[in-house]
């Protein structure tokens, strides 16, 4: 009997309990001031509470510039730490480290010679349009790299040498060069991605190439098609890094087109980190294409490589080319001039 009464009264008891809790909340919030008036800040959330809820404080603004409605975003200080400490140190370590490693490679491995010497016969490796695409991207990359490094490291390295006025003029020109060269770089990047896509797809021979030490072990022959695994990695890393710097760069070039300051901070971090790694990758690419390997540069220079070089580094590709030419009844290789 008592139990049924209690169970019947339960909703009532719960309601009373909830009401009494609810009643104490406003009573606590409306504490009075020394002059007896209600405290107007009792309902105010202070700056630190707001910043704990969201990374920035926004409100309403009367002026037409609605972007100005963001009152405080302390993340700027974090971005400064990235830019002035992490990027300077990390960038210096990665780029100087790469140069040192390449120097060591040159001292230890030295220039990879054509083992059988030059045959004196040449074969076309890159067509004119392929070379144009490469050098369009390459030249743009060098300009972008140098001007990009200037805006990050220039005030440490160049400013003390040439003084603030000259450095300002240089940096102003560098900024415009960077912004406009970006477009020739992107055009070149798209061309390279399209032209060389098919020959950079992974193949079974890439594993064998890796097992044979990638051509760096003198008495071992590493087989490869048109591009070996090392070149394919340069291609795919360049594709990824190129797309990342292009997208982040475009976001920075068109401020507030779908971005706010916080997005631009992230875009700048992506742009800087990827660019530093990209520079390191391309330094390695430049080293192997020039100093590191005899007979490599002419592939992108004149477009023609020595037959013996092709035999040593791209045997499968050479065999295929020669077979194609035989089928078309052409001379198997052009004589050297």
């Amino acid at each position: 009997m008592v139990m049924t009464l209690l169970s019947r009264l339960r909703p009532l008891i719960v309601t009373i309990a909830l009401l009494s809790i609810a009643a104490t909340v406003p009573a606590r919030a409306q504490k009075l001031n020394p002059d007896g008036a209600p405290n107007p800040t009792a309902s105010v959330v202070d700056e630190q509470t707001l910043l704990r809820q969201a990374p920035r404080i926004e409100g309403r603004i009367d002026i037409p510039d609605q972007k100005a409605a963001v009152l405080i975003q302390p993340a700027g200080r974090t971005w400064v730490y990235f830019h002035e400490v992490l990027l300077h140190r990390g960038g210096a370590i990665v780029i100087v480290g790469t140069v040192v490693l390449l120097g060591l490679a040159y001292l230890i491995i030295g220039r990879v010679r054509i083992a059988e010497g030059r045959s004196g016969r040449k074969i076309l490796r890159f067509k004119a349009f392929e070379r144009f695409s490469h050098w369009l991207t390459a030249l743009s990359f060098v300009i972008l790299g140098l001007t990009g490094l200037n805006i990050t490291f220039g005030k440490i390295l160049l400013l003390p040498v040439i003084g603030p006025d000259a450095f300002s003029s240089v940096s102003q020109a560098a900024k415009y060069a960077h912004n406009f060269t970006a477009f020739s770089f992107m055009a070149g990047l798209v061309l390279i991605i399209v032209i060389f896509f098919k020959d950079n797809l992974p193949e079974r021979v890439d594993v064998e190439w890796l097992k044979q030490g990638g051509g760096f072990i003198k008495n071992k022959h590493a087989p490869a098609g048109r591009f070996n695994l090392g070149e394919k990695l340069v291609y795919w890393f360049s594709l990824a890094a190129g797309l990342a710097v292009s997208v982040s760069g475009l976001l920075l070039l068109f401020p507030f087109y779908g971005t706010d300051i916080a997005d631009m901070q992230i875009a700048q971090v992506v742009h800087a980190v990827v660019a530093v790694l990209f520079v390191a990758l391309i330094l390695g690419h430049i080293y192997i294409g020039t100093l590191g390997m005899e007979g490599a540069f002419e592939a992108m220079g004149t477009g023609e490589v020595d037959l013996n070089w092709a035999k040593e580094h791209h045997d499968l590709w050479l065999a295929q080319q020669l077979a194609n030419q035989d089928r078309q009844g052409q001379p198997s290789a052009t004589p050297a001039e």
Partner: protein
Amino acid sequence: MARMKFLCDADRCIDCNACVTACKNENEVPWGINRRRVVTINDGKPGERSVSMACMHCTDPPCAAVCPVTCIYPTEDGIVLHDKDICIGCGYCFYACPFGAPQYPKVGNFGSRGKMDKCTYCAGGGGPEAPGSAEEFAKYGSDRFGQGKLPLCAEMCSTKSLLAGDGDIIAQIYKERVLKRGYGSGAWGWITAYREDIKV
């Protein structure tokens, strides 16, 4: 040496925008740029507060740290000035600023931002122009500070919400107000700008 700061007592600000207008008029700030603005938080809700915000002239200013041509620097009074002759309009200071102070006269793309503009604490420019000269005024605005005056925004404030002056003195004024009236929503931006708060 005095350390100049701004302090907005949000419990007094009535969002009248007189500080915004005073700044624009005194410094003849170009169209599209507002060196000072008033933001209303919790608009129309309980706990609504308006805060007048401009360059806070930060301690260890982030804009100065990231400027790739080091055209921004704090003076010995703690006022953050910049040299428009050196500025290349790269936009780094505006990524770095927690208060949205740096702005650019051109909204164009491809890096055509023009020279950065921001509150100078009515202390003229940070360039080579002679203090108080017409050249300086055209580029940066008024040099009231050189005449021993405080920024006009704070001087004009009808409710004396916006305070400018030596940091210790305005912090003391704010503290006394909070003690007297019994409430205060805090010194907005102080922890971010000056890495200190006003304890009451």
